């Protein structure tokens, strides 16, 4: 890959059809970012014992079993879905929208980054992120998520997770190149008759486009991702919420004035 340059948009194309659920990405991320991980627990949920993205897990491989109970299947990434989930580095980032401190910024690589020294742990971003990406570290009192290996990019290195992924399910690069690669892959799958393959976040239908976008083998909801109809920014509720409050306020003031009105008799 060409050198990593400030001013260019970078991201991930995660092709779930070739993910083998090895979790190398999870571990590589923890190793590079010195995350301890959560205390071990058996979740009895397929091969997933990580559970969710949080402050200790910036990559999380989801396992969704749709294996038909029969001898032969076509496998092909459709029967046991695996998806390495991560911060989407949304073009229109819900987290960034609500953050009151300005801790969440867009970097020179067009990625979404939480400045640890600025964040004060209010957790508004957690309430906002539609992907359940962000978690709190109670030790630091700050919000954490994938940095898209900001430090590595600055040093000209590709992110640790992409580097570790053995099957190139996670591809890192300039967004435009990734989008091209994704289109080619989708076309190939469609021509092989894998019609359910679809790109998610490649276009601007969800959050103006995702810097970390995916090739999925089923509907987005199956993977726990909001579909295009269901992807809204938090600010969509500003107007409605304030309007209802305003109307209530006016009615309440009138009601108060009426209740407290000057008495007729002494």
């Amino acid at each position, binding site marked *: 890959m060409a050198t990593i340059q400030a001013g260019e948009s970078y991201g991930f194309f995660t092709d779930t059809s070739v993910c083998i659920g090895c979790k190398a990405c999870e571990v590589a991320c923890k190793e590079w970012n010195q995350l301890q991980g959560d205390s071990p627990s058996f979740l009895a949920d397929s091969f997933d014992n990580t559970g969710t993205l949080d402050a200790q897990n910036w990559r999380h491989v989801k396992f969704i079993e749709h294996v038909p109970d029969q001898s032969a299947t076509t496998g092909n990434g459709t029967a046991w879905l695996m998806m390495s989930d991560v911060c989407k580095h949304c073009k229109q980032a819900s987290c960034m929208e609500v953050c009151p401190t300005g801790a969440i910024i867009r970097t020179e690589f067009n990625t979404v980054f939480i400045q640890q020294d600025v964040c004060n742990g209010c957790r508004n971003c957690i309430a906002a992120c539609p992907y*359940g990406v962000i978690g709190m570290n109670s030790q630091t009192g700050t919000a954490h998520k994938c940095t898209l290996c900001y430090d590595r990019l600055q040093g000209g290195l590709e992110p640790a997770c992409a580097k570790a992924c053995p099957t190139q399910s996670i591809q890192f690069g300039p967004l435009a190149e990734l989008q091209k690669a994704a289109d080619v892959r989708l076309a190939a799958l469609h021509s092989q008759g894998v019609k359910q393959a679809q790109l998610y976040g490649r276009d601007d239908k969800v959050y103006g486009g995702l810097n970390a976008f995916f090739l999925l083998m089923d509907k987005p909801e199956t993977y726990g991702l909001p579909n295009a109809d269901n992807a809204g920014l938090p600010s969509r509720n500003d107007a409605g919420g304030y309007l209802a409050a305003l109307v209530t306020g006016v009615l309440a003031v009138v009601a108060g004035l009426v209740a407290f009105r000057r008495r007729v008799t002494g």
Partner: protein
Amino acid sequence: MVYLAAEHFASPPQWTWYILFYFFFAGIAGGSYVLGTLLRLSGDPRDEAAARIAFYVAFPATVICPLLLTADLGASWWKFWHMLVDVTPGDTGLNFKYWSPMSVGAWALLVFGFFATVSALDSWLRVVPMLLNRLFNIVGSVFGLFIASYTGVLLSVSNQPVWSDTWALGGLFLASGLSGSAALIALLIRNRPEASISLGRLHQADGYFSVLELALIIVFFITIAVAGVLSRVLPWLPLWAIAVAGIAGSLVEARGHTRMQAAGGSATVAGVRLDTVVVSLLVLLGVLAMRAAVIFSAQ
């Protein structure tokens, strides 16, 4: 407004007890301030004693708010001021995002804190001339209304199930905050017999607010049902029941006092009776319970 097919995959922000009490006190602070102002604007001089109680209530309730918020920040508590000042290297300045209720709220709390403090001081020292005072109260009340309501909007401006599926929360929190404030002031009249003349009116106001609140609860449930997340609210029905009990109490109490007035009897009640104590406590409990029900149903 965008209506979403309400399937959410957001993580809960773990806003729990500190935030619950913050929401409660913000409602009381803003609500009391507004009631104090309305008593002064609409009532007669005999209501001044009750108005002062209102401002006395608004002050400590306001002071507690930033403390609760700071405590909620946990290990980062000392960075509370980052809400107002952006310390991003190379991009320092004041933080203000009109589309982020938390950002606006932080400023509103600061400004309202000023109003609440001055008004409480003045209630004690009585130095500000009346007209100026009224004007000051009116402006302060605008912030009071904001403080009492924006917390509901803040919840809605998110991607959490329930919270972001309704637009009623801001209004609901305001109505309930006002109702709770009226109940609290009524309760406190116990220690201020000279204010008991306002008791009936406070109950009456509480009644109106409760009607508003009830209407908004209905709107809330309808919006939630339409979004298909009713199931997340149902486990918290007992809390809603407490809130509704508060509303019912207010209505009964208000009806009693309205009758009394209509009967032309001396509109003065000798002092706070047991019914006021019970109803007021129930209303306040309801204010807390309703907020708890809303906060918990998303997380």
